């Protein structure tokens, strides 16, 4: 069962993956240090499928694509936040990591709650408290990219279909 990890407002890209690790290209190396500045135990405790719940402006700061890459590699299956910074938002989609905008979600969860994300139904459920939150729907073309697993897999497939 997916568990929630709850963070506050303005979780910046330096908190997600610090600049000194950006020489690494191996996603598994990056995942070892994800969220280190905020919660040094996060990387060792996070499990595959877990969900991040956060406040406003998640992912503000740098354009470093290793930020969503490190979170996804660490096992995070979706991020539900009250709002996102734009470069992170796009980078996450390009890496096939669902990012969902949801007003008031942060107060509805505490770390460790059981969570289910229903992307197509546009809802996030807190199974520990029976709370349900409506997320803003994603446009179809973004859903298509997410379903493909990211922009590169999507482009590879569409180039293949065009017979080039």
């Amino acid at each position, binding site marked *: 069962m997916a568990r929630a990890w709850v963070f506050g407002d*303005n979780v*910046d*890209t*330096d*908190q997600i993956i*610090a*600049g*000194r690790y*950006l*020489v*690494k*290209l191996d996603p598994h190396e990056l995942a070892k240090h994800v969220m*280190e*500045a*905020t919660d040094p135990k996060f990387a060792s405790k996070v499990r595959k499928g877990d969900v991040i719940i956060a406040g*406003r*402006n998640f992912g*503000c*700061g*740098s*354009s*470093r*694509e*290793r930020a969503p890459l490190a979170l996804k590699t660490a096992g995070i299956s979706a991020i539900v936040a009250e*709002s996102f*910074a*734009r*470069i992170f938002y*796009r*980078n996450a989609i*390009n*890496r096939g990591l669902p990012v969902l905008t949801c007003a008031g979600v942060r107060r509805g969860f505490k770390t460790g709650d059981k969570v289910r994300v229903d992307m197509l139904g546009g809802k996030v459920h807190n199974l520990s408290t029976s709370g349900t939150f409506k997320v803003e729907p994603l446009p179809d073309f973004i859903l298509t990219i997410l379903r493909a697993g*990211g*922009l*590169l897999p999507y*482009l*590879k497939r569409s*180039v293949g279909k065009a017979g080039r």
Partner: protein
Amino acid sequence: MTIAEKILARASGRKRVSSGEIVEASIDVAMTHDIEGPMVVEGLRELGTKKVWDPSKIVVVFDHQVPANSIDAALNHIMLREFAIEQKIPDFYDLFEGICHAVLPEKGFALPGRLIVGTDSHTTTYGAFGCFATGIGSTDMVAVFTMGELWFRVPESVRMTIEGRLPKRVMSKDLILKIIGEVGADGETYRSVEFVGAGMRNIDMAGRMTMCNMGVEMGAKAAIVPSDGLTTRYLKGRARGSYKHVYADRDAAYVEERSFDVKKLEPQVARPYSVDNVGPVSEVEGIEIDQAFLGSCTNGRFEDLVEAAKIVNGRQISKRVRMLVVPASREVYLNALDRGILAIFAKAGALVEAPSCAACMGGHVGILAPDEVCISASNRNFRGRMGSPKGKIYLASPTTVAASALKGKITDPRDL
């Protein structure tokens, strides 16, 4: 239409666009550097791109970890260097030239009306030249390097009118910090911010670049100063290709209007750990510092060094402080060297380093230990940005950094 709408309309081959529309736009200049560049090269291999769409529109700059400070960094440099040579990219600036956001304007790539993308959030800097410039990730850059196009949602525009002339020793950094403090770190998310008004005409190109650079710290997708005589003068002898000035229509639609009078503006400081935690210097005066950093794509330009040198000239930096002075580019370094500016800092006890991003990103020189305090002319004071997550960064102007370095504590530059 606003400036952003006009540029995106032109780049997508349409007569008109309005905010909220998704457009497929042709890119005029695409920049990458030694941090994201290797990720772009990996992505191109994954996609199977053998040849980039147009080498003449690509600029590659090594600036973050120069010279290499680890084996990994050195290997990344080799990877990107080989790519640039193999793809015959004419504008490949190896680790001699400086920070991308200083180099692209100096080399004449930032021109009015252009659509520029870079794998760096501070790509917004180029908006100082009346163009639309924004940061993207490495995967989007793979798409750009392959096809020369990228999708954009046309942003809403905001107009900020600046009036008055900055007082002595108060800089455009103080103004942009004041603005970010007022609107908040996500206050202009996804929007294009236009800085207009008589006050902007009094701010030189270096000062405009500082403001547009930090546009991203309030979430903006682009920050734009309409071009004028100062722009044209800067570009004379530099511009790479022709350009056309782009101005907003009289009836352009803005979702928000703000105005700022700078006549009585005080020096501003952003306290840890967010860029919008801003107050006048009087609120933090006296806080002891361990490091003072003058440099970065925000405030490492010649004009910044000159203003700081006026304060440092003939004095000694506090014994308890290490001051790092890092010119943003080779051009800045040489200018400052020729005019004796670097000597002023070196004689005062500062460490003068070769051009690079240096302490700003915490991956190279000037790393902070737990509980150490740095006053910095750079752009971010996030937790762990400059080393230890327990280190503290106060963001300020070059003059405030210089005054604080002399006194060993945060100091109002108007007092010296």
